[in-house]
């Protein structure tokens, strides 16, 4: 894939819907934003605002969409090819649901490698476990022997082991304890600088997104109401009333803690 004109992910006039005719629900309406290659972009909003749906549309898990989605300068059609999957990977929200209950860590990682035709499987697994901060003794464990944070590290390892350039993060810390959340966020920040990854992160937590991303889109009821930089966010310079409401709630929460 060409990596020209600095393009990471671009969305223009994207609509995503579920169901047909009377049962049709428009989950995302006329969404548009651009993530530069190597950048990190956050999507914020309450549950049901359509932020995860955008990730699903990009990955092809939500089949009904219209508009233009481009990844690394190439427009996506209805089908995603091998090329797409080797460039874009995703980390899911719930680490308890995203690992196969009957596969060891080793099996999960070697399956990913063999799907993309990598050799030196052994070396790569040892290295990626190291990179995500897991001891080698975790390699042959089953998911039920791991904690939530360890599972999420395995999920991150699974996504990164095939060396993608773009990582989609669907609330990667919301199912974890607060103390583990910080560890995972720091890990993700470190991996991004080490590997020069492009992040598109979904969260309902402004603090998490503010920590990770340089640009943020605020979503409400399927629409992007405002895109602002993290500096503006920190300076509480929001124009849209909904964004201000979110900011106020977040500041309030801070004070109470």
């Amino acid at each position, binding site marked *: 894939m060409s990596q020209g004109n600095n393009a990471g992910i671009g969305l223009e006039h994207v609509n995503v819907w579920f169901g047909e005719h009377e049962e049709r629900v428009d989950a995302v309406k006329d969404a548009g934003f651009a993530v530069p290659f190597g950048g990190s972009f956050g999507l914020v909003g309450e549950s049901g605002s359509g932020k995860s749906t955008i990730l699903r549309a990009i*990955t092809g*898990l939500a089949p009904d969409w219209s508009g233009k989605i481009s990844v690394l300068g190439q427009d996506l059609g209805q089908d995603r090819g*091998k090329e797409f*999957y*080797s460039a*874009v*990977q*995703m980390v*899911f*929200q*719930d680490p*308890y*649901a*995203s*690992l*196969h*209950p*009957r*596969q*060891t860590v*080793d*099996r999960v990682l070697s*399956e*990913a490698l063999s*799907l*993309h035709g990598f050799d030196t499987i052994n070396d790569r697994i040892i290295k990626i476990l190291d990179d995500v901060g897991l001891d080698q*003794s*975790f390699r*042959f*464990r*089953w998911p*039920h*022997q791991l904690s939530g944070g360890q599972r999420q590290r395995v*999920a991150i390892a*699974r996504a990164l082991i*095939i060396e993608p350039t773009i990582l989609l993060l669907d609330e990667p810390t919301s199912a974890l304890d607060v103390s583990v959340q910080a560890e995972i966020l720091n890990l993700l920040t470190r991996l991004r600088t080490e590997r020069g990854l492009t992040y598109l992160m979904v969260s309902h937590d402004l603090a998490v997104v503010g920590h990770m991303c340089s640009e943020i889109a605020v979503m409400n009821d399927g629409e992007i109401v405002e895109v602002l930089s993290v500096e503006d966010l920190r300076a509480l310079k929001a124009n849209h009333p909904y964004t201000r409401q979110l900011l106020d709630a977040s500041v309030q929460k801070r004070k109470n803690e």
Partner: protein
Amino acid sequence: MSMSTELPQKSSSLYEWLTTDTPTSRKQARLSSWYRSWLELRSNPMAMFGIAILLALVLIAWFAPLLAPQSPFTQDLAARLTPPGEGGYILGSDSLGRDILSRLIYGSRITLYIVSLVALMAPIVGLFVGTAAGYLGGWIDVTLMRITDIFLAFPKLILALAFVSALGAGIENAVLAIVLTSWPPYARIARAETLTIRNADFIHAIKLQGAGALRIITRHIWPLCISSLVIRVTLDMAGIILTAAGLGFLGLGAQPPSPEWGAMISAGRKFILDHWWVATMPGLAIFIVSLAFNLLGDGLRDVLDPKKNSK
């Protein structure tokens, strides 16, 4: 205590190797997971009782020529319908003076043959159909499940009867007929399981790794469906034995003089009032083996239930 240190140490290190939380190879991870399941199964006395009976059945079938006091086919019309315990006939003799015990021992081979063939074929057909329908969805799902419905609409034995009478009587055709009539429930189970897993995040994740439908079905969905199928097959074994016996009883399964248990009951039917043992002994054999399979199936359900240790 110091005398016996060597052996316990050795076995406890094997025990530790098998139960460790940190296996160091693929083989060890797999073996230790099997060993844990076995430990759990072993703690269920009823399941172990079932396994013991089935193990005994296998041994009896294997060593039939050594165990049987007589040939199952030798007739002695002078000693026909001898009651149990008399004249060297431990379980009595049938209407042609053949030793019932010897016939039961040789009949265990036929029972095992039928059971293992059906247990190998029916669930595999069901697994293919069910997971394909469940995962692929759309018109494939509709077509496959309507075919399944058609098979389910017929009473099992009636459909098996129709197949056997079309194909001709005999054990092989009886097995085929039983397979053809017993796969639909397995397809239903496999489809239901697939529907609950197909939208799980771990399937989405492997899809995002670029895996195709065939790979996802065979390598990621099958392992999760197989445990519930194994449980169901074990519990259905009793029914399969009874269907086979029923076909034998109706004269469409094993043919005389083959010592199939159902055919033996059928032959004893005429004498059931005056000479109860002729039909009762094979009936007891069927009962015991069916019970053993049910006990084992219950135990396996406790061990293999995927919902139990998913978290």
